[in-house]
């Protein structure tokens, strides 16, 4: 079976995110004075063959730990795993 895994990778909480900061400043300039914080991460959609949804999730977690996220600076979350 093939599964589609949606993965969020974000800068670890508490770490400065200069990209997010620059965007927040731009939003303020545009008049969105209510913006308190912007954090920029990545959204990955991985299509992978696996024997079950649980296996697809396990594989995706291993991919994040080994490559997709840097454990020193980033957190990841598997938003959802769906059969295609």
């Amino acid at each position, binding site marked *: 079976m093939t599964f589609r895994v949606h993965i969020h990778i974000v800068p670890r909480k508490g770490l400065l995110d200069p*990209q997010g900061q620059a965007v927040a400043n731009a939003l303020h300039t545009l008049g969105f004075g209510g913006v308190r914080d912007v954090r920029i991460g990545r959204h990955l959609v991985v299509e992978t063959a696996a024997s079950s949804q649980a296996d697809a999730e396990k594989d995706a977690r291993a991919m994040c730990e080994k490559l997709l996220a*840097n454990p*020193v*600076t980033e957190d990841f979350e598997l938003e959802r795993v769906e059969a295609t």
Partner: protein
Amino acid sequence: MKFGVITFPGSNSDEDTVHAVTDYLGATAVRLWHKDHDLQDADVIVLPGGFAHGDALRAGAIARFSPIMREVIAHADRGGPVLGICNGFQIACEAGLLPGALRRNNELYVGAPVYVRVERNDTLFTSRYAAGQVLRMPISHGEGRFTADAETLERLESDGQVVFRYVDATGTRTSRANPNGAANDIAGIRNARGNVLGIMPHPERAVDDLLGSTDGLALFESLMAQVAA
């Protein structure tokens, strides 16, 4: 004495490095492609600056899986010297040759001359400098803010693994002199064994008065002296 300079797709200071060590120091350099499996008996491996694989995912994250990196890691494990400059420092961290990570600068991209202080000269890479000497070298990076957890930072400091720190022209640490927000003003570190150095500034672009500085030459001279000895 042979330098092996690796070119990844997107490297851009590989030729600068070859130029520096051959034309200014009279050393031999061999150009290695990231898909090679052989270091061609190079004594020192240089991971050069640039944007390997377009910095896809994270700077250095993909380059670390290039076929030649297996040989580079084996070379480092045998105690062979490895010098990671800028993007090469990022690759070395991603490959686990050095601790920590290089994150986005606190003020995005910076290209400018900076001053760094040689924290110690009893290393493979700095024996031709004086301890405390202040060097002027260019930086050119968007992701050079050295970061590590508190425990790792403490170990780097207590074990003397911090080799270069950002300072002002007088050699004093100030927040203004730190161009990217790096922890503890760190510009360069070595591994615990002392044979791998990562440095964000570009010594290979500080080898001629025309470039504004010749302060980078002694780094390569140090390696030549140590490796030849």
